[in-house]
């Protein structure tokens, strides 16, 4: 009897150990986590129905705890497709393009709901979208226009500040270009498709991509994002002025503002272009290649004389700065200390920049004011460079005389040594 009891006791112990082992194994495989039967099947399907757990795990929504059911409805807890994808369980299937903005907006336009994830996140995207050309055309029944997922992606959607996000500043132009640079896709719309190619040549693109200046403009900076629309002729200057404040202030007060408005010309774009804005050079003020004034003005008229004066003054300051730079470089290469004058050159360069900005006032006297200030500094620095060279020459002369004196002493000492040792 005791033997039998012992056997049972051993069998009970074994069962206990097996149960513990199974529990540990189940825990290590994530047994007990919420089941997601959607991914189980869809990970095995080809595109566009295929979504793997790996892909979805990178999605910002998945990281915040949302699942397939959050957007598509249904019941992910069962493997039976008739139950998991039943209308009774709220399954919506593939979301119709026209429904996407409203679906996204059901959460993103709800400040109370969004606050739990990011209290600082905007919730006016849907309202803005309705004011955009995309939104208006969608409502009008055009399914080709961009909806949320076209720009932000789907199932692997990243936060906008994620380098891989389609709306990260460095990627925005490419995202827009997917449609706007596709002539076939844009057929039927009366807008050009070369904006992306032109933007690629612009200094804005260079600043963004080469200098990695994330504040440099990309498509959405001028056109808006959710409320994307082309800036009207009268709004261009307002758009540019968000960054180029001083130029805009001077332009508004200038005679050109009224003239351009009267001729329905779009301010800044007339001289600088829009998508292919190049780095402005002084050649724009000239009468040769790259000149812009001569598009409207005639040689020898009052405005042309003002143009010529501004160009000559700016060229004068530019050359004075270069001359001073050269003089200081020569002095520096001779080992002279001219760092103070070097620092002064920055002030002269600031004046040159201000003078170039002052062109937007179209008043020679305003340009003159900055040119004179810059010339004063550049001339002073030039003098410092020249004086340093004179000083260097004097030092070498002094050195020569000292070496002669030292040589004479050496010879004297040598002769004296010879005399006393004779």
């Amino acid at each position, binding site marked *: 009897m005791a033997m039998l009891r012992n056997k049972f006791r051993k069998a009970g112990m074994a069962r206990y150990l097996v149960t513990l082992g199974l529990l540990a194994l189940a825990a290590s495989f994530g047994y007990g986590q919420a089941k997601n039967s959607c991914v189980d099947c869809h990970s095995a399907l080809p595109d566009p129905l295929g979504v793997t757990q790996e892909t979805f795990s990178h999605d910002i929504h998945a990281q915040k705890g949302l699942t397939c059911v959050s957007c598509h409805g249904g019941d992910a807890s069962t493997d039976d497709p008739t139950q998991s994808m039943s209308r009774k369980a709220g399954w919506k299937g593939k979301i119709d393009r026209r429904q996407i903005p409203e679906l996204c907006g059901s959460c993103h336009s709800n400040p109370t709901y969004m606050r739990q994830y990011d209290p600082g996140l905007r919730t006016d995207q849907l309202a803005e979208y309705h004011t955009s050309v995309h939104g208006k055309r969608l409502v009008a029944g055009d399914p080709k226009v961009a909806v949320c997922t076209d720009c932000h992606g789907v199932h692997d959607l990243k936060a906008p500040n994620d380098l891989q996000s389609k709306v990260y500043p460095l990627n925005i132009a490419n995202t827009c270009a997917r449609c706007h640079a596709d002539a076939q896709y844009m057929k039927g719309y009366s807008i050009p498709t070369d904006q992306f190619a032109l933007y690629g040549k612009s200094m804005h693109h260079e600043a963004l991509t080469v200098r990695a200046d994330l504040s440099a403009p990309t498509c959405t900076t001028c056109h808006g994002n959710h409320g994307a629309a082309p800036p009207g002729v009268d709004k261009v200057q307002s758009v540019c002025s968000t960054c180029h404040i001083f130029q805009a202030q001077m332009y508004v007060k200038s005679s050109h503002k009224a003239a351009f408005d009267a001729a329905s010309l779009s301010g800044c774009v007339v001289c600088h272009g829009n998508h292919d804005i190049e780095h402005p050079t002084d050649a724009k003020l000239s009468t040769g290649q790259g000149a812009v004034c001569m598009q409207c003005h005639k040689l020898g008229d009052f405005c042309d004389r003002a143009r010529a004066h501004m160009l000559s003054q700016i060229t004068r300051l530019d050359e004075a700065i270069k001359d001073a730079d050269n003089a200081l470089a020569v002095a520096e290469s001779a080992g002279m200390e001219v*760092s103070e004058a070097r620092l002064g050159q920055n002030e002269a360069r600031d004046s040159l920049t201000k003078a170039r900005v002052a062109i937007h006032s179209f008043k020679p006297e305003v340009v003159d004011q900055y040119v004179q200030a810059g010339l004063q500094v550049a001339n002073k620095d030039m003098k410092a460079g020249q004086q340093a060279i004179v000083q260097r020459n004097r030092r070498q002369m002094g*050195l020569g005389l000292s070496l002669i004196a*030292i040589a004479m*002493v050496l010879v004297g000492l*040598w002769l004296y*040594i010879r005399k*006393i040792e004779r």
Partner: protein
Amino acid sequence: MTVVRNVRNWFYERLEWDDLIAPLRKKTVPLHRLSYWYFLGGITLFLFVIQVLTGILLLLYYRPGANEAFESVQYIMTQVQFGWLIRSIHSWSANLMVFTAFAHMFSVLFLKAYRKPRELTWISGVILLVLVMGFGFSGYLLPWNTLAFFATKVGTDIAGQVPFVGHAIMVFLRGGEEVTGATLTRFFGFHVAVLPGLVTVLITFHLLLVQRQGMSVPPHVEKDWNANPTTRRELKFFPNFALRELMAWYTGLGVLGALAAVFPWNLGVKADLFASAPAGIKPEWYFLFMFQTLKMIPSKVWFMDGEVLGILAFGVAGVLWLLLPFLECDRLARSKQWITGMSVFALAYVVAMSVYGYVAK
């Protein structure tokens, strides 16, 4: 002339210097084909005097402090009459002094002048060389320019790698965890007070020993002289040798003046504590052989950190170098050969690694 004679007599009646200069009149210097190496010690002393004099002049305008140091040196170089010359001579003279000190040490080594009874002269000389390098390291930071700032950062970082006490040494040198204005004022203190005091005491001791023991004669010259006593030649220290030394000093002065006028010492750009280190930052040339060695040692050698191993190796080499006179034994002829061989290797190593460190990127 009568006035001069009267003044001289007035002083003579009170000082009676005949006794004082009598040893100098009696003192002689061995004359042989290697005698010119005797000038190196004197030239190093001359450069030290130049350092003291120009250093005092620089002190009149230099202001230690992160916000003032660079500007004050800039002021010295641009506004102060002959300030550029004084600063350039101070910098060039410092580098020449390190060079002549090294040359003096190796000449003593190869001429076997460290042997009994000159062990203490050798030890005080090696310590003086280390202190001179300390002068260079502390003085390099004082203009507070970018290169100096980062070189000090690297140098004190290396000191921080010494096992057990490294961190404490680094904090002591920097006056904190980082190189800041506190490091500058601390280095200024070392440069103008601590090191000059120590060096003055040691130079006095070193010179006293040289005067007491006279100039060493290389063993092979001594052997020749003993074999043929008529070939033994000596030169009176005063005035014959002293006048020759004076000629060497004058030549040194000419070289210094030429370097200062033709290649004025660059001031560089003011140190920016928040800027990233410029590419290829290197210490002064006399630390290059150690810097390059530490760079070349793999990060891990067996179980030890490569840099720590390098520092320990240099530490051991330094101690052996200091105790060199005691490693040579008259009874063991091989010990002399070993020391000569190691000396040649050490010189070749220092030169080769310095050149490599200079050209390496």
